[in-house]
């Protein structure tokens, strides 16, 4: 397979996953921000959202102080934000279009139709800013698009290197997203969680779960109220939770091994991914909290970034 094709597939999947993540953050933040301040409607909600989306710096460069309406617009529509939903869908499609022949017709049609839908909303928004109902519909659309692309790829693509590279993109992005949202939320909430248990925390913590679509999963696994350390456990160490760091790394290792087997050669990407996976497998929550959650997550985000680089070096560049 062409290196460029693998690169496009990897990024196609990454952008679709990111579009989904940004839509989820925007959705939960919108819910939180609409709560009365006593129940968790903190003023810095949108700042946290921008930060989790990795968009705080570009936002501040453009707008300065954080304002809810501007933040929504920046996360969803702004062309100057490389990770805005419209940019993610646009870049996802550009990557998909460059490798149409490596995608199934179903997957291509899904992304192409979603892109057309997005363009329509974008034009509409440019003429007259969307109202809340339309914004929610757009976020739902973005999440559904990611789901449909994922599902059509899963159902129709040959299990060969094209599929594996796209899956790698998806899981590297997902691991990054989960780690980021956990990090940001913990940072904001920690000073106030010394007295854990108020309704304020409840909504805040619930919002993280919602952002990674894990509200129901949480209750199935723990059968108790929402507790910060259990949320961290769920999102870091629970292999049955599909967005947990450990689950992502299980998949990354699996797909990198599939590639190595097919090509008959292991490399730095495989080695590094296995190291990170092993680290997660041997970790306990107690240990994570002793080192400090923020330190743990920062190191993870760094590792994950470097594994992305190792994959690029080994396969995507010449």
């Amino acid at each position, binding site marked *: 397979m062409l290196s460029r094709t693998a690169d496009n597939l990897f990024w196609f999947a990454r952008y679709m996953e990111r579009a989904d993540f940004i839509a989820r953050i925007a959705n939960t933040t919108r819910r939180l921000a609409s709560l009365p301040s006593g129940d968790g409607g903190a003023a810095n909600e949108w700042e946290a959202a921008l930060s989790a989306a990795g968009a705080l710096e570009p936002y501040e460069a453009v707008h300065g102080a954080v304002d809810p309406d501007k933040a929504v617009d920046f996360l969803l529509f702004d062309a100057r934000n490389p990770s805005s939903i419209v940019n993610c869908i646009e870049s996802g499609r550009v990557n998909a279009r460059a490798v149409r022949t490596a995608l199934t017709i179903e997957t291509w*049609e899904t992304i192409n139709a979603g892109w057309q839908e997005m363009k329509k909303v974008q034009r509409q928004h440019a003429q007259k800013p969307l109202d809340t109902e339309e914004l929610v519909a757009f976020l739902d659309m973005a999440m559904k698009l990611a789901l449909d692309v994922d599902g059509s790829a899963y159902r129709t693509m040959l299990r060969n290197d094209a599929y594996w590279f796209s899956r790698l993109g998806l899981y590297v992005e997902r691991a990054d997203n989960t780690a980021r949202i956990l990090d940001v939320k913990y940072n904001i909430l920690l000073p106030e969680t010394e007295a854990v248990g108020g309704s304020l925390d409840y909504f805040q913590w619930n919002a993280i779960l919602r952002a990674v679509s894990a509200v129901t999963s949480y209750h199935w696994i723990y059968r108790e109220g929402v507790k910060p350390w259990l949320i961290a456990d769920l999102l870091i160490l629970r292999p049955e939770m599909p967005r947990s760091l450990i689950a992502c790394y299980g998949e990354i290792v699996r797909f990198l091994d599939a590639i190595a087997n097919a090509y008959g050669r292991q490399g730095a990407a495989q080695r590094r991914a296995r190291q990170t996976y092993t680290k997660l497998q041997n970790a306990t929550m107690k240990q994570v909290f002793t080192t400090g959650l923020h330190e743990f997550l920062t190191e993870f985000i760094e590792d994950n970034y470097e594994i992305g680089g190792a994959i690029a070096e080994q396969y995507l560049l010449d």
Partner: protein
Amino acid sequence: MGQKPFFDEMTTAGGDIRAVYRRIAQWLEQSPPELLASRRHQAELMFRRIGITFAVYGDQDATERLIPFDIIPRVLSRSEWTRLEKGLIQRVTALNAFLADLYGTGEILKAGIVPSDIIYRNPAYRPEMAGRPVPHNIYVHIAGIDVVRVDENDFYVLEDNARTPSGVSYMLENREVMMRLVPDLFAACRVAPVENYPEHLRACLRSVAPLSAGGDPTIVVLTPGQYNSAYYEHSFLADKLGVELVEGRDLLVRDGFVYMRTTQGRKRVDVIYRRLDDDFLDPLAFRPDSALGVPGLMSVYQAGNVTLANAVGTGVADDKAVYTYMPEIIRFYTGEEPILKNVPTWRCREPEALKYVLDHLPELVVKEVNGSGGYGMLVGPHASKDEIATFAQKLKADPANFIAQPTLSLSTCPASFAQGIGPRHVDLRPFVLSGADGVRVVPGGLTRVALKEGSLVVNSSQGGGTKDTWVIDDPQAV
């Protein structure tokens, strides 16, 4: 050319339906307007979903537009097709012999049949190719020959496309859509298949691989990239051929061979079906500012270690000045009379012709010798006085750059619109493949239709649309 009524391919001047269109006419009669409207809508949805789009240069908003598709098929009988096919094979065979001669010993120039200045002063002539034979002496592996009808009997060639002709994906996708849209009509008509075009193309490309490639040559399609107007077609063809779609940056030259960069290292490439113009192929040999090509590609090509399809330098043969000599060229190389006619053409380089053309501009179509896509031409009968005057100045300034033709009364076919059904002018681009094992044409081609009433310009860049083209067995006399 007078006010002779246009030749309609479905209906005779007396109002009778021609036998070959009988089923189509029945279908149109039995389909209420709402049904046709819903078919048109369905077709548009199908095209949009597959993402068949093309870009119109200079049109900022419509970076990706659908070419309008007309749901009424254009029909040719088997006997009409057979005659056309023979003519196409004859013409493309002559084109290949002509190019081999031009880059070889130049017999046709020595014989004084084609003036040598229109060859050597042509920017598309590539001195790099002189004296360097190509595999099996085939230069034009893929040709698109634009033909039109003006009456029941004759096909005229409007233009030979010997560089990187496009449109074949539309031929194939139009067929696909029609089979889904009107399965009953399709089955009843027993339409000759075109679906095996990619098979033929693959066989053709394999057959011209360099000897050093061995038994299983690696073929690729080379595209300028996804912002090219024909990108959809490039990816479509790569997919159907089952080969990689590469851009210049995916290829590199090392030690006299071309390689592509893959996830498993470098892989040698033997045949490049390139959809990139000569100028952009290799910045070391041609335009140094081009980032689309592959540095060093020409040196590998000249050493015979990679085959380019079409060959470099074919543009010299599809030039509009050379076009005027095609009947003589065909006679020279095949010893036969041309089966397909040339449109009578005035070469403005000849003073008498120029005088005639200047006197008759309102009746004529004047084209630039090197223009394409309907740009830079004058359609006399549709031009204003001012436009004609301005064009006359251009013409006088550089007569050798122009040819002129009468406005042909192109045949019409019925087309379906929201307002009803009406005749529209059409042309046809069949695709001719030349490989080591001979010349092949799949029965059909791309019918382009001028959707604006009365318009004669069918180019997609100028608002033209397309139709499926059906070759069906001659109807038995009833």
